[in-house]
């Protein structure tokens, strides 16, 4: 009886116990596998499957070894839009910036930017967009490819192995000519892995001669650069060899320098090799002073174009992101370009830099919240406020510059000579340089809000001073106008 009852109860219990252990074992195994995977993820930073070298410009090849980075790099082809930047939606060319802000068009009269000036697209489109811009209806220099293509192999080819020689020769080619050579050489890719990484070690490096020369000139000047400690250290040393970012800069600085190879103010024309104007410092005035100090062909003073309406010799600002960032609180705190534009992303137990380079506003949690512990909404609102203020001030700058141009036109119609308008035109150059410095910069003032407002304030002041000068060309001036 006892035996029988024990048997009849224990069989289902035994089965139940067996099933419970089976499930427990399965869970323990699953957990073991998961832990194993995570450990492997943390161990292997990458596995080199194909060999890449200095001539491997095709990013797809690098993508075999570094799939995580390549996958995100490819996303730069995705259209993104923020309130003040970028374009979204279709595959079509982005919207015309100059149609939206008519003062831009009038400001650029006499320059190719008056023909075609659009919102930006991602890194993936840099070469294609440049090949398609209507600005090419005016002759353009081969220098432009310094930043729009993975050009180092072509520079080496042109210079007989010496990239710097090739770079120095490249400005004499027309854009079409050099672009054709680029396609023939098989290196027609937009900015690629090899442009910022040493193929053997993947270490960050700068390759562009324009930057290397510019930063060297900056180091040799005595402009304060508290945000670039390695430059200050080099200055304090014996200066036996020129400053070399690849040797002297810290890893954190390199995370900005690689971007500074292109996101800067420069001259890129047919008169001299591509030049980064940093010999006197990085502020709008420093750069202006540098341009004022060098000749252009026969002209004693450099200028980008002669304004079609007024005849003033004016400067065109490119996109001085590196320069404006240098004046801001983020740079001063040691925050690099990549920290916000390529923040770390986690994939399992590994951490990689997001190579989908884009506005931090599209990636607030990773880009901002690492340091700023407030909600995404709050961060977004703060940035929006900063950018809106900059936008409003910039519109006032545009209006002031239009006022100046109107006054110059009126004075000319009334018979004023160039000599009588000299002061007004000089002020146009100063005003326009400052306005464009902030308008062309791609952060709507965010990279250094206070500095941007200061530069715009000066732009407005110079424009209105110029307007007064143009209005009082025939009469003795009643107001004493400072031009410095």
């Amino acid at each position, binding site marked *: 009886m006892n035996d029988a009852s024990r048997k009849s109860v224990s069989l289902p219990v035994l089965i139940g116990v067996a099933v419970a*252990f*089976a499930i427990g*074992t399965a869970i*323990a195994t699953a957990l*073991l596998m998961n*832990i194993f995977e995570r450990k492997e993820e943390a161990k292997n930073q990458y596995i080199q499957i194909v060999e890449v070298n200095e001539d491997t410009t095709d990013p797809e090849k690098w993508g075999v070894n570094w799939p995580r980075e390549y996958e995100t790099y490819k996303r730069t082809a995705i259209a993104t839009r923020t309130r003040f930047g970028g374009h979204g939606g279709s595959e079509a060319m982005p919207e015309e910036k100059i149609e939206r802000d008519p003062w831009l068009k009038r400001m650029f009269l006499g320059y190719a930017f008056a023909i075609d000036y659009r919102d930006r697209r991602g890194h993936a489109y840099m070469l294609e967009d440049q090949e398609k811009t209507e600005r090419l209806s005016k002759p353009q220099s081969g220098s432009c490819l310094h930043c729009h293509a993975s050009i180092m192999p072509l520079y080496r080819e042109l210079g007989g192995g010496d990239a710097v020689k090739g770079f120095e020769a490249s400005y004499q080619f027309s854009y079409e000519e050099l672009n054709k050579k680029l396609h023939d050489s098989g290196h027609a890719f937009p900015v690629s892995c090899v442009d910022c990484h040493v193929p053997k070690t993947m270490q960050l490096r700068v390759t562009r001669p324009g930057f290397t020369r510019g930063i060297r000139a900056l180091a040799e000047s005595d402009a304060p650069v508290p945000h670039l*400690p390695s430059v200050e250290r080099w200055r*304090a040393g014996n200066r036996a060899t020129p400053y070399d970012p690849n040797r002297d800069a810290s890893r954190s600085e390199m995370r900005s320098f690689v971007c500074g190879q292109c996101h800067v103010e420069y001259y890129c024309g047919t008169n001299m090799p591509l030049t980064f104007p940093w010999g006197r410092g990085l502020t709008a005035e420093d750069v202006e002073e540098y341009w004022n100090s060098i000749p252009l062909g026969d002209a004693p003073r450099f200028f980008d174009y002669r304004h079609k309406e007024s005849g003033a010799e004016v400067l065109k600002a490119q996109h001085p992101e590196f320069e404006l960032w240098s004046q801001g609180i983020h740079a001063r*705190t040691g925050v690099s370009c990549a*920290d916000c534009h390529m923040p770390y992303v986690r994939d399992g137990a590994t951490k990689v830099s997001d190579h989908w380079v884009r506005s931090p506003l599209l990636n607030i949690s990773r880009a901002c919240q690492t340091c700023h512990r407030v909600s995404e909404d709050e961060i977004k609102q703060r940035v929006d406020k900063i950018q809106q203020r900059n936008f409003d001030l910039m519109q006032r700058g545009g209006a002031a510059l239009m006022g100046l141009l109107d006054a110059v036109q009126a004075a000319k119609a009334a018979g004023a000579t160039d000599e009588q308008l000299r002061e007004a035109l000089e002020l146009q150059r100063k005003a326009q340089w400052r306005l464009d410095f902030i308008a062309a910069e791609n952060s709507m003032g965010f990279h250094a809000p206070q500095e941007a407002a200061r530069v715009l304030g000066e732009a407005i002041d110079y424009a209105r001073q110029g307007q007064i000068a143009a209005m009082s060309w025939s009469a003795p001036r009643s107001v004493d106008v400072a031009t410095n």
Partner: protein
Amino acid sequence: MSKTVALVGALAGTMIGLAAFTFDYAHGLSYFSHDPKACANCHIMNPQYDSWQGASHHTSATCVDCHLPHAGLGKWIAKADNGFRHSKGFTFEDFPEPIRITDGNSRHLQVNCLRCHGDLVHDLVAGSTSDADAVRCVHCHRDVGHGPTTGMGGPELVSAGAVPRGASNE
């Protein structure tokens, strides 16, 4: 009957053995220790571990000194609670990033600030410091544990190690 028991026993043994191996493989015992390295076992807290080494408190306090109740049952409850949440998060990768301290852990942290610094600041914190709207020590002293920018390392100061300009003229 005894055969069946033996079979179930073998099954149980397999599971216990596998579980024990998994536990050891995952450095399970380290979680019972005081060692800060244990907190970075799973790599998620590498930036926190790295930045702690560069911050002022690393000479005097480890992770658990600030982040867990000091003693008693509360310490083990908090350890178990965090351990479970973190393991679950890392296994299923379902946690929000960047990681942020929870309210409960934030209260432990405040208690621990006062555990060491209480004598110095007791006049300042005469009222409650654990109310939701009370100002916590780390509201202002945010960088004592991990420096100013946990995810990125701190800024390199120009003066650090640099020869002052003009010093070589002597």
